[in-house]
């Protein structure tokens, strides 16, 4: 299983395309964030993340 990250929203996925942004995902990512409660998380707010899930911190 290769995880890829959306180059825009940074969400991690196995798919080649982000279902939310409809753009290609990248294998080239680093840093890892699990957002449990986006409404209460300062980190999620800082990164403009509004959905729970797994994210990369940096994608190229």
């Amino acid at each position, binding site marked *: 299983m290769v995880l890829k990250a959306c180059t825009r929203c940074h969400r991690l996925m196995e798919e080649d395309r982000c279902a939310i942004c409809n753009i290609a995902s990248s294998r080239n990512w*680093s840093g*890892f*964030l*699990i*957002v*449990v409660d*986006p409404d209460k998380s*300062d*980190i999620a707010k*800082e990164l403009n993340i509004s959905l729970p899930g797994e994210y990369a911190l940096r994608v190229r």
Partner: protein
Amino acid sequence: MIYAIRTLVGQEKNVARIIGRNVKNSGIEVNSILVPESLRGYILVESTSKIDMQNPAFKVPHMKGAIEGEIPYDEVKNFLNPEPILASVQKGSIVELISGPFKGEKAKVVRIDESKEDVVLELIEAAVPIPVTVKGDQIRLIQKEAD
């Protein structure tokens, strides 16, 4: 509030995932779990309330213990927007390799390829200074300018 947990190096994501599952619907208020690439062997747990890190939910395989006290949010912010490292590195900078076969070695920056995000290094402790090309996110800046 941010708490730090020590993990076995290389197991950061796994520990984060298991803790993420454990805290769901547990009543423990964890809002996010952060695994910064540059902080090997640690994960950071974010909460809006004080949490008891001795709770069994955090005692998972490869977890090596919780760090006493909280980490200021300002310190954590640095991990959130990892700038392309090459923005702060220059020719002559001293860096440490944080991944790949030369992990842990110190090196001097010989050349930077900004567009490709590659950096050419010379390992400091190598008997023969062979140039090594790595990606910008494989290094951590130790000293911006050489003495």
